[in-house]
């Protein structure tokens, strides 16, 4: 299909410049094909040799093409698509495509990093050549598809189409947030496994909410004076008017104490006071 490009004229000694692969083959080249073509280029150009070399190269190319038909076509289509989509980046794409030694992945990395300088919006559609719309499956090399805005490293053997990349990015973000939550909640560092951590979080929030409820009940009793308290001795009344100034200091001291201890034993203490059972 690309046979006309590799014909006698390009191998004629009259124009040695076209020995470079870039002019013969403006698209990114797979390693197998590259080695095959290089063999053809390096051989002494006589007509007969060249034709056989060209035939060999073509054959090699054909075989590799049949090997990776989907990927090959997909990659070229993708390259085309990317060039059409982002016209502003056409220059950079073609310039990177001209580098002879580059494999296709490097090209993707280059244009990914170049386009990575764009604005940091979260649209996964901004991917250039890595995602594509095509159903191209795993390449033989280790794929490194940096997305436009979110750089996700796909490991070997993992699908590199757009949806799974987006999924993976989403999952990584979620686990990031879960680790952040683990830092907040006391005793959660040692727990491994999302489900258990989530359990802990849920229990913690519930106990906090119950505490608030209990405290507000207590407050309400305190507030309303001795006539409505359950037992006079247990909940002595006070005057809220004397509160404000010292209150902040007390709160901060308690907070400091809590944080230095690294745990919250006071609310455990609370549980004993109240009539609530802690569900663990």
């Amino acid at each position, binding site marked *: 299909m690309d046979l006309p490009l590799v014909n006698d004229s390009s191998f004629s000694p009259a124009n040695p410049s076209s020995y470079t692969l870039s002019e013969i083959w403006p698209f990114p080249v797979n390693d197998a094909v590259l080695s095959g073509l290089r063999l053809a280029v390096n051989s002494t150009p006589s007509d007969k040799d060249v034709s056989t070399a060209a035939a060999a190269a073509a054959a090699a190319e054909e075989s590799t093409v049949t090997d990776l038909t989907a990927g090959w076509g997909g990659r070229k289509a993708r390259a085309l698509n990317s060039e059409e989509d982002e016209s502003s980046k056409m220059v950079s794409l073609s310039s990177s495509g001209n580098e002879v030694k580059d494999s296709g992945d490097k090209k993707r990395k280059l244009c990914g990093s170049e386009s990575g300088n764009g604005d940091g919006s979260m649209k996964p559609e901004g991917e250039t050549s890595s995602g594509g719309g095509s159903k191209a499956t795993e390449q033989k090399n280790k794929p490194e598809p940096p997305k436009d805005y979110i750089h996700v490293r796909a490991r070997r053997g993992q699908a590199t189409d757009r949806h799974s990349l987006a999924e993976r990015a989403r999952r990584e973000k979620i686990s990031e947030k879960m680790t952040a939550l683990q830092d907040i909640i006391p005793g959660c560092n040692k727990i491994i496994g999302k489900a258990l951590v989530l359990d802990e979080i849920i229990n913690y929030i519930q106990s906090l909410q119950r505490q608030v409820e209990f405290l507000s009940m207590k407050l309400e009793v305190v507030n309303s004076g001795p006539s409505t308290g359950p037992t006079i001795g247990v909940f002595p009344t006070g005057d809220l008017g004397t509160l404000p100034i010292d209150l902040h200091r007390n709160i901060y001291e*308690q907070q400091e104490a809590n944080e230095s201890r690294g745990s*919250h034993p006071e609310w455990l203490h609370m549980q004993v006071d109240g009539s609530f059972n802690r569900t663990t």
Partner: protein
Amino acid sequence: MERQIINKKKRVFSVEPNKIPPSEVFTRKYTRLLVPALKKLNMNKNSSQANQLTVKHEVDMALALSAQEFAWSRFLLQKLSSSNNPTTTTSSSSNGIRIQKRSGKEGGDEDGEIEEKLRELQKLLPGGEEMNVEEMLGEIGNYIKCLELQTIALKSIVEDTT
């Protein structure tokens, strides 16, 4: 969002007097809101209101108003203004029972379990059901911090009056 959480964890007494750590900000706002409200309630206690619910209402209101930079506070305010009865924590005990039951039965799809727990979490957070999971996880962090600060503040208020 994570930075806010981390900032709230550390109480930094900075040299610059203008920067106040967010936890302090929250606590100050909270107490300043709550104490006068309670005083007012105290004055009005002769009128036949359901005292317990009203105190809770004030407590929640103070929480929501002191944390207005977060999404969940908006939802909390909505809930409070729409109904006089606070609904945030009344379902907590029932949720606790459900958690116990669920942990009893093992097996099933692991991802499904996690999703169920996430949904549970969403119910706990005011407005959590209207957010997507990532947002919610971020908001939960500062909700927890605010709850902690709130309990400390309430405790101090109670202790000071006894």
